[in-house]
């Protein structure tokens, strides 16, 4: 390896770049997952939700949360719950002088909703439920375009009442327009005050959903958390975001799989470099290996020498790769990568993605590189071991 330092360094850099790429991709995927979870849960969803059994699939107005007072009073005492808010939800029709469309009408408590969702931060026109008017309605920018309405314009919302199915209509004034860059939110939802929604649906003081944010994002994806069992009684169900958005969880599993594929491809390219380097080094010293074999070095001894060289190359590469991987990932983790506005599996990135460095990345990947590099070294090692000493000496002469 020291005989041709430039070649060894170039090979080491090539492998090191592969290792650095693995570390960076891993850190980026973690950052992306965190970003997606945060975007998905903080936009509107929350990290957990409580509903009446069956509500999620049918959205029937009469399926309100059972024993709401018990649920709310216990939630207030939960140490792991940071915020929660109550919501009333229903399919409905929204009509303007220009158009009509089906939407999800969501009744919210503006004060507590601010702690859960980012509707207030996404306002592009008007205000987020300021004042006390019961007839304020906040809609998405795409819905406003469709209905051809602006601030202060009138809209009629029609919903079917619980139990009887009688239609209930109310007139609203557009008080605010938001934009999340998410079609589902910008085109398909309209927010009104919860008391008005309860009145329209004739459900008294009941609600359909309680959205929850925990003190740690880990709780939302821990399906074994006792919290879920505690609130999944009296005919209600309590679920985390992994259940609410299974496609997001599947996307994360896909991400993890993709890192293996990326690693495999990267290493495949690097492996060819290693084989090439070792073979070049082998051919350069063919006569020496021939001499070593001639004087009594066993075939295994020659092979072992090549594997040791591959191992030494791996150590140099790991040294370079770890430094490069750390520096590049650290810099990007400070700057961030701008994917804002891009939608992926139903989640729109709303913030910069910051790669996340973990100690594990600097242990697992270097070990993988070391073992795979040594493994790749077996091929030239086997070649050298099988080489006839006479042929080896004749070739170089």
């Amino acid at each position: 390896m020291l005989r041709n330092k430039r070649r060894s360094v170039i090979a080491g850099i090539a492998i090191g770049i592969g290792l650095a790429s693995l570390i960076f991709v891993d850190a980026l995927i973690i950052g992306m997952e965190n970003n997606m979870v945060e975007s998905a849960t903080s936009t509107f969803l929350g990290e957990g939700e409580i509903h009446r059994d069956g509500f999620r699939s049918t959205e029937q107005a009469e399926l309100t949360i059972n024993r709401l007072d018990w649920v709310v009073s216990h939630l207030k005492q939960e140490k792991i719950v940071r915020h929660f808010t109550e919501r009333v939800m229903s399919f409905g029709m929204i009509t303007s002088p220009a158009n009509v469309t089906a939407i999800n009408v969501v009744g919210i408590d503006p004060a507590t909703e601010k702690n859960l969702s980012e509707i207030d931060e996404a306002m592009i026109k008007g205000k987020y439920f300021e004042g006390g008017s019961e007839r304020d309605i906040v809609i998405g920018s795409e819905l406003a375009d469709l209905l051809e309405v602006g601030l202060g314009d009138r809209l009629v919302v029609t919903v079917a009442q619980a139990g009887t199915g009688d239609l209930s209509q109310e007139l609203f004034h557009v008080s605010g327009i938001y934009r999340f860059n998410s079609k589902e939110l910008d085109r398909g939802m309209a927010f009104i005050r919860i008391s008005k929604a309860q009145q329209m649906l004739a459900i008294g003081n009941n609600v359909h959903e309680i959205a929850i944010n925990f003190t740690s994002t880990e709780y939302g994806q821990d399906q074994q958390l006792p919290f879920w069992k505690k609130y999944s009684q009296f005919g209600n169900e309590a679920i985390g975001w992994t259940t609410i958005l299974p496609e997001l969880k599947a996307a994360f599993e896909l991400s993890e799989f993709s890192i293996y594929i990326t690693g495999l491809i990267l290493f495949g390219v690097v492996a060819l470099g290693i084989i090439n380097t070792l073979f070049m080094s082998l051919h350069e010293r063919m006569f020496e290996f021939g001499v070593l074999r001639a004087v009594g070095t066993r075939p295994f001894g020659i092979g072992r020498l090549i594997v040791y060289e591959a191992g030494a190359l791996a150590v140099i590469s790991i040294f370079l790769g770890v430094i490069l991987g750390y520096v590049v990932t650290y810099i990007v983790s400070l700057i961030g990568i701008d994917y804002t506005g891009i939608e992926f599996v139903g989640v729109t990135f709303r913030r910069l993605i910051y790669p996340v460095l973990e100690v594990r990345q600097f242990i697992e990947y270097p070990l993988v590189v070391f073992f795979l590099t040594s493994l790749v070294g077996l091929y030239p090692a086997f070649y050298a071991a099988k080489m006839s000493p006479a042929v080896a000496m004749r070739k170089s002469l």
Partner: protein
Amino acid sequence: MQTTSEKKVIVTEGVTRTYSDNGVAVEAVRGIDLTITSGEFTALVGPSGSGKTTFLNLISGLDKATEGKVWLNNRLLSEMSGTELSDFRRDNIGFIFQAYNLIPVLTVEENIEYIMLLQGVAKHERHKRVVEILKEIGLDGYQDRLPTKLSGGQQQRVAVARAMVSRPAIILADEPTANLDSKTSGELLDMMRDLNAKTGMTFVFSTHDKIVMDRARRLVTLKDGKIEADEIVN
């Protein structure tokens, strides 16, 4: 009956080596029968392409005969596995090459002790033998030098020391003087003759150098892969 001093160390019977050169079979060595007894100082001579080096490779087990048999110290080479052959060469044959072939990153001592290292000789014993043989070849005190710091003649002396230090029965030298001037070649050959006389080791050279031929006791002349002449000269 054979005496110890006349023990047959190399015996070949009908040894042939055929190469394929662009699909054309080329016989480098053709049915050579030869016996070399212990303590001989023999030179295989002949023009380039006569088969000297190929024959040397065959009798050392570095190459395999296409036909015929080779015995070294009563062991039939064709019956040995790769590892057995390596061990056999390590313990029975010392090699001297035209280009010295010392390992450039190792010191003189490390180069000389390499074979003893393979044999598992203890460090103390290795060092003792290296010092002794360096004294014998006139390079006393050179053990810590790198080969690149030595002249061609000195490097070849180190190569001789490396070949002899493990006390093999046979020393095979392929054109050992090809890269040396005539004075250095003469000195090297005289030194090897002295060692041959002292130790009783068998020396077999492949050469077309007159200096080597002048000092050899037996000349085996090869031509077109066959023995043309076999004569005792000294």
